[in-house]
């Protein structure tokens, strides 16, 4: 994961901020050029994300699922696996949780809700373990398989919404499922509640602990950076791989379950279509660190809240947000600048008798090629 960050610590801290800021500037520039009042947009964005209690609620409402998914994505990426199936895992979790909730709709909330959330977690993990097992046992490329699992989940959700769990007395416009009983909901329509914030807090703490206080966290990092060395050390990378796929899927599944038991209450075909990819971007901007993921999720949650608010005041299309996210993804892994910084740093420390090992320098890899 080193190249995501470059080598310099300062660069590591500054880069995501620079990338996001430049993308924001670019986006606002585009908005301005296409005739929207820039001042109005910026003002509206601030107002819609942090300008009032309601705005803060909106920000949190979007930050919560992003945070939950991005924590898991970050762990998977740390181990060097490029699982891009968070969207499908989220859908799987949402479907599972909803099915349990609706099947036991007369049961006591104290039993049904935890059971439903657990089902969501389990289904999300299972959904992720398909590419996980295929990757670690057979060596099948996880990018393709996890993408395919996304499509399967989208279709499964569509079928659920028009088939078995279809809301019969709905208006018939969009395909949706039955509503969960009000007693089961863990938040109202605003999508924020102390319970949900508590879940997030627990997850962040757990992710921090996993990363810096457990041997597993250390092993995940080593597998991600050098799987061959990990094997020689006695770390079973395939087992670590299964674990991170499972964890990534579990968090995405939990996010889906929380969405349906929180703000949504029922499922609609193709809800929150970009959530999975957005979570990938959040994890990358946060350089895969849990605490930074919290900050990044809040920021992107605020952006989402702002862009939902802006159309109301300025008629700005929602797609602007996707454009902005995409631009962040385009630049976020750019590493030429840190390479230059690192080279300068190396030159400075050269007197200190720490001559760089030849193999590690990307410059040399370039020059000598794969066999060098």
């Amino acid at each position, binding site marked *: 994961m080193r190249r995501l960050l470059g080598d310099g610590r300062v660069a590591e801290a500054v880069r995501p901020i620079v990338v996001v800021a430049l993308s924001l500037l670019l986006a606002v520039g585009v908005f301005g050029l296409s005739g929207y009042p820039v001042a109005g947009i910026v003002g509206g964005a601030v107002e819609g994300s942090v300008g009032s209690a309601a705005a803060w609620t909106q920000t949190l409402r979007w930050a919560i699922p992003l945070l939950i998914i991005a924590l898991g994505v970050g762990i998977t990426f740390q181990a060097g696996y490029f699982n891009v199936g968070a969207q499908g895992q989220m859908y799987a979790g949402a479907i599972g949780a909803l099915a349990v909730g609706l099947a036991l709709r007369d049961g006591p909330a104290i039993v049904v809700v935890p059971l439903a959330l657990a089902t969501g977690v389990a289904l999300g993990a299972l959904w992720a373990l398909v590419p996980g097992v295929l990757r670690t046992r057979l060596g099948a490329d996880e990018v393709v398989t996890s993408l395919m699992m996304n499509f399967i989940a989208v279709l499964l959700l569509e079928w659920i919404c028009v088939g078995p769990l279809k809301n019969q007395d709905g208006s018939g416009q969009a395909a949706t499922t039955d509503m969960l009983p009000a007693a089961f909901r863990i938040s109202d329509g605003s999508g924020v509640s102390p319970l949900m914030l508590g879940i997030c807090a627990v997850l962040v703490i757990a992710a921090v602990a996993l990363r810096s206080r457990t*041997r597993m966290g*250390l092993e995940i990092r*080593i597998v991600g*950076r*050098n799987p061959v*060395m*990990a094997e*020689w050390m006695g770390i*079973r990378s395939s087992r670590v791989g299964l674990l991170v796929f499972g964890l990534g899927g579990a968090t995405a599944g939990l996010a889906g379950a929380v969405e349906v038991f929180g703000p949504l209450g029922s499922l609609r075909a193709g809800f929150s279509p970009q959530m999975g990819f957005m979570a990938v971007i959040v994890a990358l901007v946060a350089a895969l660190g849990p605490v930074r993921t919290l900050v990044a999720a809040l920021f992107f949650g605020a952006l989402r809240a702002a862009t939902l608010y802006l159309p109301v005041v300025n008629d700005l299309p929602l797609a602007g947000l996707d454009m902005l996210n995409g631009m962040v993804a385009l630049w976020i892994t750019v590493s030429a600048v840190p390479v230059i910084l690192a080279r300068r740093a190396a030159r400075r420390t050269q007197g200190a008798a720490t001559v760089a*090992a030849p193999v590690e320098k990307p410059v040399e890899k370039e020059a000598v090629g794969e066999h060098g």
Partner: protein
Amino acid sequence: MIPRRSPIRPATRDGATLTCAGVSVDFGGFRALSDVTATFPAGQVHAVVGQNGAGKTTLSRVMAGLVTPAAGTVQVGDRLLPGGNVSEARRNGVELVHQHFALPPDFTVAECFELFNGEQGTVGAFSRAGLTRRAADLLAGAGAEVAPDAVIGRLPVETLQAVEIARALASCPKVLILDEPTAVLPPPAMRGLFDRLRRLAADGMCVIVVLHKMREVFGVADTACALRAGRLVLEPTPIGELDPATLSRAVVGDVTVEAAGTTPEPATSAPVELEVRELGARSGAHDASAADVSLRIRQGEIVGVAGVEGNGQRSLVEAIVGVTGVRSGSIAIGGTDVSAAPVRERRARGLRVIPFERNVEGVSLSSALWENHAAMDGGRGAFLITPQALKRRCQEALRRWKVSYRSVDQQTGNLSGGNVQKTILAREITDGLRVLVAAHPTRGLDIAAASDVRGALVRAAEAGAAVLVVSADLEEMFEVCHRVLVMLGGRVVATFERPFDAEPVGAAMVGGGGG
């Protein structure tokens, strides 16, 4: 044996003199070559010798235009080559045969020939039949017995070399450079290769061959030059004016190696710590399968495994470590059979490893020093860790091993090769050590670091560990080992006891009889 008329390019039988003038190469902050000046006349075989890391491969790549020199020039005949331009180098008749070959694994032999021929920038449409015919001609001309439609990835190593040489000869080069061509060859094939090179030189070609064994140099070359730590320490000198001792001194340097053979003999009653019985194992395409390998190492004993690289040493080591499965036979550590045990369990029983390639199997270069140090827990690690404690432990260990570093949080890749190797020793040679497997423990290290590492092996044995050393460096093994086994073609073909004599060991390594 070379085709008089290549179907692809008109034959030019004349060779050309290759001249390097003041060539220097920098990799990042690392100076791989400095100010190398040498002339290699046409019509001769020139040997370039040096230890691993001396810059031989880099020099051959500079001559072939694959590496851009920071300073200096390469000249073929009277043409000055632009630095770092492969096409120009090849157009001027310089061809390089790579040690690990530059043949795309999913290409057929015929496609490889076509890839390397023809002008850049042309579309170059061809027919399948024509492709196969041309390849068949070239292969026959070069005496290589392989089907033109064979897929590269499924060919054995010797065949690959034949293909690569045929590929290089296809363009009728004036200068042919071979980078360690003998590393992958069994002895009879080596003889054939040398005859071939001599004939090419006799035809007028300039042949430059990178070698690192004295025997080979004196077997094939007209001149020899030596590189040490990136400097040309011996200019190309006619072989008649050299003797093996002089050349060895040039390669190794004038440093007198520390007094040898100080390790006390272990008691014959000491218990056997590592026992390998009739082992069969296969690591991968680049190494022979270990077959029927048996060895016993007692506490306090150091046993060496000598052999030309690729003769099953890697298969043996990987099977002992547990990263490659045991096909037949058994492995026991401290009397317990571990043939089926995972790496972690073997390590918990006291197995420690200094792997072949420290930057691949030994450390993660992009991880912090303390993370690499903590990567091995010997199987007794708890689920929870305290980074501060691990960092302290790492600090103490690195200080004990005199590693020069700034902070345990720094990236391991910023250390020099010798220091990286010492961090591995610091991690592996710990209290629980019972069996130490050291593969090429001093490869690429400078004299001082190498001697430190050898001292560490001896001390580990003195402390009661069983030590297995795999190395290509006979002097090193004679210095530290009690016994030396020789592997050839995956089998142990000879065993030698102290006092050692280089002649029979060397002979056994190349299949010339055993002791």
